[in-house]
């Protein structure tokens, strides 16, 4: 392998297929395609795995689109339609962004992730082989403080039960005020138990059924892996752990300090001890699962529809589309692009396929093939291969490729998957045809399993165990072997044990993902003789794909991360209004529409008595019915008490002026006589003219410019006079 770097790491750049990464300091000169860091321009190889080859949009550029109609009234200023707050821009694939939006009075939280890469400041559980007799004494820490320029020593890792870093700014929001939580991927779900266990949490959580299941398994796995620490360190002390003391924090290397406190030094509050299994259970009970492309309506107003985003088996699962009754807005969640307005679903599915050029899927395939060839080389040399990648889709594809390659080179090397949830995850992937891509679905129709792993397990080529200490594992364990095992942070789970075992073997190979700080990740395992291959996979939309995406969606507004402002220079910006958002700033999105639509039942319309205004060609009529908001529509039904009452109701609203001469004439015809008298009795009625009625009974009509008062001694006379007045005035 050419280009073996430090710790024998294979440089990803040595292979063109693997150099797609934009995660380096900047795009290299040999990279004509600008892929920027936050877009996480890596591409999913899961074209074959995914349902409908649909690419995913920038994880950091949610698109807010709405259908806009020209404002009807020029008087009113555009009102704020929606408020958007970015709580976290996220990090890598495993740490999706987190936003909160306020729309039509509802607060919607988009994803609730955990920053698991920050686990790397903790030391994995020491073993006998590893535990250093020269544990740093407390005073030696002080010396190191001065020298933090030099490479960090593994002894500086925090030796304590790890805490987990949540999205800090989320804690500033009042949890009971969140109405809806939309989860777009299993990764976006990992922080959810922290939220759902809060007293007063009452939001509806919408998750696709597959995300829910995988997310639950990932969380349970996390809890289980974390338990290992508890067994080692004993029960947690109450209150803050020691490492969180200010002095201890001060003494941390600057890199660690930044991880703990964040760039602005305010993120300490985001650290929490991990939730319990009961918290996970409670969280799952509050989740509402969605089927593929199922539409749900929240409170009659918000329409939420999950469509496949085409990212990874984990993330492709959901990208809720949000439509609001008023503005038909549509939010495509992170890592999704197939958001749709009401009408455009079909077009989009078609065009999403267009978007994904085959060359890119080929590229991804090539990448996997390259990884596979490295694995085979390593195994041939007698070394074992360790794959701690946490992407289910990649694992499934690699499994198939590896087994094919092994067969082709007639090698008999066992493949192990060691994870507490592996068995269930693998079983689960074979029962979700609805969420897979066309090619995989075809397998259903020809009666084969979707993925090869079922067959591999049957043929005893693939072995699945819940833990390294599983009794049967030792019986059949043989090396070299290929092992998949969590966790990618290299701090938790079975991977720690395996890595310690093989780190000294120069023939062995560790496959890591780019985007993970490899130096830090491998720190506890130094010195390493083992080879390391870092490879990047797609985890978002490519920047150059944004434009075609916008073309399909035709959004009126696009919200884009501020950091990417320079990188987007779109020619036809007049068709979409771009807004740029920053972390922890609330961005108001204006509303352009001032009126909404009402649907009136036809039988109700037939009851309306329309009155034509003489001057203009306008007809007006009173409308009364039962109002309802269903599925994003305002509707007026004919109510129960409708039929009889609407017929003979007197007009309630009058306009125009009352001509006294006419009034007297009309009254006369009714047999009512009276005389006009200029009002002089009262101080406040200077302009009032009064008609005194003396036949058939006493009554009084007080007429002013804009008002008339009828006072009669009995009901029938009063209503007769009203009839006369009504006949002269215009009314409704």
């Amino acid at each position, binding site marked *: 392998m050419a280009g073996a770097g430090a710790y024998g790491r294979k440089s990803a750049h040595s292979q063109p297929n693997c150099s797609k990464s934009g995660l380096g300091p900047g795009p290299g000169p040999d990279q004509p395609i600008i892929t920027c860091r936050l877009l996480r321009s890596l591409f999913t190889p899961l074209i074959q795995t995914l349902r409908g080859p649909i690419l995913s949009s920038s994880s950091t550029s949610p698109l807010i689109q709405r259908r806009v109609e020209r404002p009807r009234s020029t008087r009113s200023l555009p009102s704020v339609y929606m408020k958007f707050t970015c709580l976290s821009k996220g990090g890598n694939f495993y740490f999706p962004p987190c936003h909160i939006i306020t729309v039509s009075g509802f607060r919607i939280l988009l994803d609730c992730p955990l920053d698991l890469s920050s686990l790397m400041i903790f030391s994995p559980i020491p073993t006998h082989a590893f535990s250093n007799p020269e544990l740093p004494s407390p005073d030696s820490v002080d010396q190191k403080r001065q020298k933090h320029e030099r490479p960090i020593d593994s002894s500086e890792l925090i030796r304590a039960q790890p805490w987990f870093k949540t999205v800090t700014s989320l804690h500033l929001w009042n949890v009971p005020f969140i109405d809806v939580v939309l989860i777009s991927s299993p990764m976006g779900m990992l922080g959810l138990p922290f939220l759902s266990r809060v007293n007063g949490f009452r939001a509806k959580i919408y998750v696709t059924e597959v995300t829910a299941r995988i997310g639950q398994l990932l969380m349970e796995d996390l809890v289980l892996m974390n338990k290992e620490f508890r067994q080692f360190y004993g029960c947690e002390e109450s209150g803050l752990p020691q490492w969180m003391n200010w002095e201890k924090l001060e003494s941390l290397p600057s890199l660690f300090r930044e991880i703990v406190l964040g760039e602005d030094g305010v993120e300490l509050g985001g650290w929490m001890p991990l939730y319990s299994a009961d918290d996970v259970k409670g969280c799952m009970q509050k989740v509402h699962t969605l089927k593929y*492309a199922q539409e749900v309506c929240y409170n009659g107003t918000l329409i939420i529809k999950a469509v496949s985003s085409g990212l990874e088996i984990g993330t492709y699962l959901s990208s809720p589309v949000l439509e609001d009754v008023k503005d038909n807005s549509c939010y495509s969640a992170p890592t999704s692009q197939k958001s749709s307005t009401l009408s455009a679903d079909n077009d989009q599915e078609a065009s999403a396929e267009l978007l994904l050029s085959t060359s890119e899927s080929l590229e991804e395939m090539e990448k996997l093939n390259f990884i596979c060839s490295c694995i085979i080389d390593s195994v041939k040399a007698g070394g074992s291969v360790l794959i701690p990648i946490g992407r289910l889709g990649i694992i499934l594809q690699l499994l198939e490729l590896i087994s094919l390659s092994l067969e082709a080179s007639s090698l008999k090397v066992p493949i192990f998957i060691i994870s507490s949830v592996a068995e269930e995850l693998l079983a689960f992937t074979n029962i979700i045809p609805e969420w897979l891509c066309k090619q995989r679905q075809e397998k259903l129709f020809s009666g084969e399993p979707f993925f090869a792993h079922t067959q591999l397990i049957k043929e005893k080529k693939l072995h699945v165990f819940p833990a390294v200490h599983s009794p049967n594992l030792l019986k059949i364990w043989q090396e070299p072997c290929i092992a998949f095992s969590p966790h990618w942070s290299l701090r938790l789970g079975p991977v720690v044990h395996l890595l310690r075992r093989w780190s000294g073997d120069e023939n062995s190979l560790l496959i890591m993902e780019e985007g993970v700080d490899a130096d830090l990740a491998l720190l506890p395992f130094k010195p390493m003789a083992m080879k390391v291959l870092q490879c990047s996979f797609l985890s978002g939309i490519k920047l150059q794909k944004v434009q075609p995406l916008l073309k399909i969606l035709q959004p009126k507004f696009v919200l884009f991360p501020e950091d990417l402002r320079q990188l987007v220079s779109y020619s036809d910006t007049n068709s979409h209004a771009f807004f740029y958002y920053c972390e922890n700033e609330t961005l108001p999105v204006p509303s352009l529409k001032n009126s909404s639509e009402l649907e009136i039942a036809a039988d109700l319309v037939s009851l309306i008595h329309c009155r034509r205004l003489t001057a*203009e060609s306008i007809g007006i009529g009173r409308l009364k019915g039962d109002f309802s908001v269903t599925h994003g529509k305002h509707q007026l039904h004919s109510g129960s008490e409708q039929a009889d009452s609407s017929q003979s109701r007197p007009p309630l609203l009058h306009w125009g002026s009352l001509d006294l001469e006419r009034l007297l004439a009309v009254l006369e015809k009714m047999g009512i006589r009276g005389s006009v008298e200029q009002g002089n009795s009262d101080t406040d009625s200077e302009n009032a003219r009064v008609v005194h009625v003396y036949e058939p009974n006493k009554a009084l009509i007080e007429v002013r410019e804009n008002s008339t008062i009828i006072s009669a001694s009995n009901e029938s006379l009063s209503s007769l006079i009203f009839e006369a007045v009504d006949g002269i005035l215009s009314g409704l």
Partner: protein
Amino acid sequence: MAIECLVLGAGQEVGKSCAVVTINGKRIMFDCGMHMGYLDHRRFPDFSLISKSADFNTAIDCIVITHFHLDHVGALPYFTEVCGYSGPIYMTYPTKALSPLMLEDYRKVMVDRRGEQELFSNDDIMKCMKKVIAVDLKQTVQVDKDLQIRAYYAGHVLGAAMFYAKVGDAAMVYTGDYNMTPDRHLGAAQIDRLQLDLLITESTYATTVRDSKYAREREFLKAVHKCVADGGKVLIPTFALGRAQELCILLDNYWERMNLKVPIYFSAGLTIQANMYYKMLISWTNQRVKETYATHNAFDFKNVRSFDRSLINAPGPCVLFATPGMISGGFSLEVFKLWAPSEMNLVTLPGYCLAGTIGHKLTTGKPTKIDLDKDIQISVRCQIHQLSFSPHTDAKGIMDLVKFLSPKHVILVHGEKPKMASLKGKIESDLGIQCYYPANNDTVCIPSTCWLKADTSKTFIRSSLNPNFKFVKTISEDKSNLVSKETEATSVLQVHDERVAEGILIVEKSKKAKVVHQNELLLMIGKDKHDVQFAYCCPVQIGNLERTKGMDFALSKNVVSTSDECSWLHLLFAKLATKLGGNIQDFGQHLQVDSIHISVCLKDICPYRTTDGPQKEPAVFFCCTWSVADVNLAWEIISIMENLDLSII
């Protein structure tokens, strides 16, 4: 606007389900089945009624298939490959996966065993299935700009669905076959509460109400167990899909529980292959089966193996599932011939057997001999056990569904005529919903809801959304003796929130209609408001009080001083409140009921005081004003006031 429903099959009969529904110009074919009872042209729906010119692609916008049974999907390859329909076809994933098996099985029986000319080839089936678009439950599919369809769980067989279709404002549901009670492997039908113009429902069991299945299941297991314990062989003739899996789950569990080692066989590779599909489609089964998929897939039968022809005459007990059901031919007949003569053996017939099949003969009488054809006669000495497991809903289930959905019209299909007539009567009398049960090739036309679209203002929406609370105090008067009047108010407060939207519709030439709130109208049409009010100055007697506190008031003028104004008002309030309930409000200076405004009149001469002559009784005057909306109530209050004596407490 209207919905037109042309019933091409399953009208007043069971078989060849096919209904062509036109909604707002869109034409959907629901199911495309064949009739198993006929071998001539009657076996397929009469497609010529859809389009005279046989141009089906323009005549039909899409086909929706509810499940894989042949009476629902059987004519599909014929319609697409022979008649030439090439538009979209929708079915659920399991239906798409399992239909070709059913079709191919049928084709084989027709061609290979009966030697008939085939109506469609295997190639046709494959080509036809390629055109099918699979959908998930609750997935909202936009077929074209106007037509939207959605599948709901029907529970009848794996992948069975009810379909919702909507064009513009008109919406309908076609149920296909469904089951309202969960069984061994499937859940109960499930649907959202939808606004429907039309519901087309099956009515196989239009008049029967079924009891629990568990007793029948126990009976079945007992019979099978007894037979194998005595060394006999059990033959269960079934079709490959559906019933076979359900009974297998039942037997497999029972075998496990009782620790039986007697082999259970599946006759053909077909059923084994079908189990493979069931395993992958486990998410379409019921909750209990689903929960265990990871540790043990319920369709991974532990005691089941495939059958080899040589085992037919092998000694020892066994259980055999053989296709086809009803012993209508094929392998199940072959085995039946050999096993029927022995008394030790058992034949279990699950489900419905068509007239003319051996299964039917076995269940209708107790024949000892069955003539297979002119030459062959089988003597039947084995035991016969009939199992009436039916995955159709019963009459109660149909009524429940109709009531739940409350559509404007119901059409019954897939049932027997007299039973349908009685169910129609029940739906119309009990639920007040119009109901039809057309015969084949009849068309039913029903009106559909139509919505008129209008723009509306925010003020109108807001006013309509605002809760319109009315608090009504109903005072219970029975406890009034013991306590004084104020504290006795053990009134029950009733809160009403009737949201009736009132607005004004404005129609202008060549403009979209607009609905606004009343207050916005005048601004829109540029007119000034003219207030029309009523006024009445009402005297209320204070006679008795005058006598007791006489000195406090200016007797001659019949007028109260300002300081007493409020106390009079309060007195009036208390009086009116007891008569009118909680609607009246006291604002200190005046009382108010809706637009009616009552205040103490201090004027010597009030223009609204119409009563003539000097007051005989001392009285306080209250000026009342109101607008036209409350005319009736106002006069009612006035009449109360005029007959009131404020001094009587």
